[in-house]
């Protein structure tokens, strides 16, 4: 997979195999992820705040908008004859947010920060290895979104 900056100030993702496409589609693979994230953030508030009742639905909707947008963009691009995904500056935050949801989810399930420090990746079980590489890949995408789009917009 290649990720390149574009002249208009965005990014272009060029998947080179079916595995690349699958990896991208995994960004939006879990329909419940927006709910989990919104509820986990609400857990940081005390009960008096009634966060669960008043704020969580809005948060959930916002997170779901991010994943649905990215999912639709990837599926549409995959059907093209010369498939590539363009991320214009105006859509960078939606992508960043959707990818962040996956990384938070991977961290919660596998503690990928620990995996980072574990050393020998080849020794890991396949599920952990997959989580490790997915996290590294998504981290790279986020770094590029920040470097080439979001930092420049400030």
């Amino acid at each position, binding site marked *: 997979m290649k990720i390149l900056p574009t002249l208009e100030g965005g990014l272009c993702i060029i998947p080179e195999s079916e595995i690349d496409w699958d990896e991208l589609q995994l960004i939006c693979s879990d329909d419940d992820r927006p709910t989990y994230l*919104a509820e986990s953030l609400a857990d940081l508030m005390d009960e008096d705040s009634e966060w669960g009742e008043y704020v969580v639905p*809005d*948060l959930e909707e916002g997170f779901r908008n991010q994943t649905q947008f990215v999912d639709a963009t990837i599926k549409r691009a995959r059907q093209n004859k010369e498939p590539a995904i363009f991320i214009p500056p105006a859509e960078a935050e939606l992508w960043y947010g959707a990818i962040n949801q996956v*990384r938070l989810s991977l961290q919660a399930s596998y503690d990928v920060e620990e995996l980072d420090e574990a050393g020998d990746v080849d020794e890991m079980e396949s599920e952990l290895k997959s989580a490790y590489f997915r996290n590294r890949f998504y*981290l790279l995408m*986020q770094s590029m979104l920040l470097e080439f789009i979001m930092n420049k917009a*400030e």
Partner: protein
Amino acid sequence: MPKTTPDTQKKQQTLKQSDVPWNVVVLNDPVNLQDYVAIVFKRVFGYSQAKAETLMMEVHTQGRSVVWTGVREKAELYVQQLHSWQLQTTMEKAG
């Protein structure tokens, strides 16, 4: 003769409670990137680059940072915004 009527006393109590300042506290997490957190602080609070970076580094090195202090309603609004940017945020009474 009391200096204030019960109604006035109640109003003063309510005023005192809502006057208590609240801290908006951002907690460290292993996922959110440093540049991103600084961007969020600039967007949400309108902080300068320097202040946003100082607070971000405080979160990173000390595990938490009080990023704003003020009335409860506004603190709740800021927490809601920071949650929408996926930052681990809570609030506490100041002092």
